[in-house]
């Protein structure tokens, strides 16, 4: 089945409900943990492969609903690094499904362009079979200029692995002298995650009644509304989505306040760190010049100057990282 199922026109009731919801805040970015495919298969006495296929169809449908509502970014947890622990048969089956679906995507380029969809695949892609890496790379490379809607597929991903990758990048940056250790802060860690190009996650929806995050977007979901829905993923309906949006609207203000307070705290810590760095520099100058008095004139302008240099340094580092990541995809597409 296609990524773009035949469009079922919204019923008048759905149109009215969507209209009412849009009078309030609509989340820009929704994350889904699409849980329950296997239980759905057992419940309906079909095999697991069928269950996963139904799950994929539901994903395609949900993307359409999101676009209609004005949700422009969706992130889904398709395959966890932990899932490699499953039986070889099931892993192979999931890899085959991925192979088919990403290939199919490449055949539907017109539709993708028409809808302006950008596809990103986040995770440790080097763990995947080479041919899947190449297909994914082509899909990502081909759609990267689209901006109307964004689909982030977490594949061979766990949040802890993402955070560790970010830590390794920053540590490497310090080792190579591109950035200083004092430049490492929450903001930089975020800019080095696989999700660095994504907007903040507004709501995380998990289906099938499980109430945990299972290593998905642990860092990002610190200030995200959580919605645990009891329905199995292949049975997720547009009404569940509407209910989730209502849930988001009820929580958005409080979460936003907490997020802003976190931002204020970050800025305070940054100022403190900058002050400390300037003072250390002044101490050094004192020792070199043998001056007994510290030159604290124009302290504020020194801090501003330092902050400017620091921002530039960090920006170069982040740009370098993003270039490297883009080149990974380019290299794989050139092989074809």
């Amino acid at each position: 089945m296609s990524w773009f199922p035949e469009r079922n026109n919204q019923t008048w009731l759905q149109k009215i409900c969507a209209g009412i919801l849009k009078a309030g805040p609509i989340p820009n970015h929704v994350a889904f943990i699409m849980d329950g495919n296997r239980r759905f298969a057992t419940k309906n006495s079909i095999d697991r492969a069928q269950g996963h296929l139904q799950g994929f169809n539901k994903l395609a449908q949900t993307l359409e609903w999101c676009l209609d509502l004005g949700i422009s970014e969706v992130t889904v947890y398709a395959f966890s690094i932990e899932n490699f622990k499953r039986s070889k048969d099931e892993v192979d089956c999931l890899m085959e499904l991925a192979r088919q679906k990403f290939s199919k995507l490449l055949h539907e380029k017109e539709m993708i362009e028409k809808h302006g969809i950008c596809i990103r695949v986040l995770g440790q892609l080097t763990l995947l079979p080479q041919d899947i890496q190449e297909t994914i790379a082509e899909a990502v490379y081909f759609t990267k200029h689209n901006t109307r809607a964004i689909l982030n597929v977490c594949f061979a991903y766990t949040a802890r692995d993402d955070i560790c990758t970010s830590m390794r990048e920053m540590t490497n940056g310090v080792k190579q002298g591109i950035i200083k250790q004092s430049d490492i802060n929450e903001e930089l860690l975020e800019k080095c995650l696989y999700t660095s190009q994504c907007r903040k996650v507004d709501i995380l929806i998990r289906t099938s009644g499980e109430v945990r995050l299972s290593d998905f977007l642990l860092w990002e979901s610190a200030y995200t509304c959580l919605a645990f829905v009891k329905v199995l993923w292949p049975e997720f309906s547009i009404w569940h989505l509407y209910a989730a949006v209502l849930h988001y609207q009820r929580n958005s203000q409080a979460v936003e306040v907490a997020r802003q307070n976190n931002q204020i705290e970050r800025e305070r810590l940054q100022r403190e760190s900058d002050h400390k760095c300037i003072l250390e520099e002044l101490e050094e100058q004192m020792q070199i010049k043998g001056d007994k008095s510290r030159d604290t004139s124009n302290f504020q302008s020194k801090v501003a100057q330092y902050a400017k240099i620091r921002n530039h340094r960090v920006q170069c580092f982040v740009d370098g990282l993003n270039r490297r990541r883009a080149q990974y995809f380019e290299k794989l597409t050139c092989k074809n």
Partner: protein
Amino acid sequence: MITAIILRFLHYVIALSVFMHDLIFSIPNLYGMVYSKKNLVASIRSDAKLLKKLPMHVGLVIVENNFSYRDIANIIVWSVAMGISYVSVYDINGEIKRNSILLQQQIERSKQETFASEETKFEISLSVSNNKKNVANNEDGSCSKQARVHVVAAEDGRQNLVQATHSFCELVNNNQYLIEDIVPSSVDSHIQKIFQLPDPDLVILVGHIDSLLGYLPWQIRLSEILKLPSHKGVNYKAFLSVMNIYGKTEQRFGK
């Protein structure tokens, strides 16, 4: 404009039904308040035995303003009575952390009320991260049950991971560590050394905001997240019902 009015009305209806639900939920509990507190710890223990599984570490994430330290202390003491070894308490602005003395006092009071004659068998020590203030209630070593309460705040979450990165940086620069060694298991050991707490098995989100608002993001990887509408005036029965739901959950670990 009409849609805005309808939406507002819809939100009022939802808020009202949530309020009614909480009210109805707490009515059976009103009876509970009346019955005798004698042998409360014995009844808590027998309730615990009926649970299929008990968490080792419970995280209390309080997303309400205005705290009742008395009620927080009650939840902690009930947890310890059930056999839970670690409790962490979190609030968004770090207020409980700054006023941990108040919590400590209320834990004392609640311990006396709940455990009565068995009080000496339980030791509950309170620590505030990076600033361990262990409160030993009994020094004689005859405690059969030790529990630790750890008060955490936002800086123990994301900021702590930033600090961990700083530590790894130093280790790498001193050639004590390779960059490739920064993997989830090593970061995990590093964090364990700081907090000396296992990951929370159960997180109880207390209040009406459905977000963890910065609570230990690294450690909640596999935590079950359950809810209590409020901690103020919370009754043991409400706490027990959360533990019952936890007892029924099943983890598949990605398999």
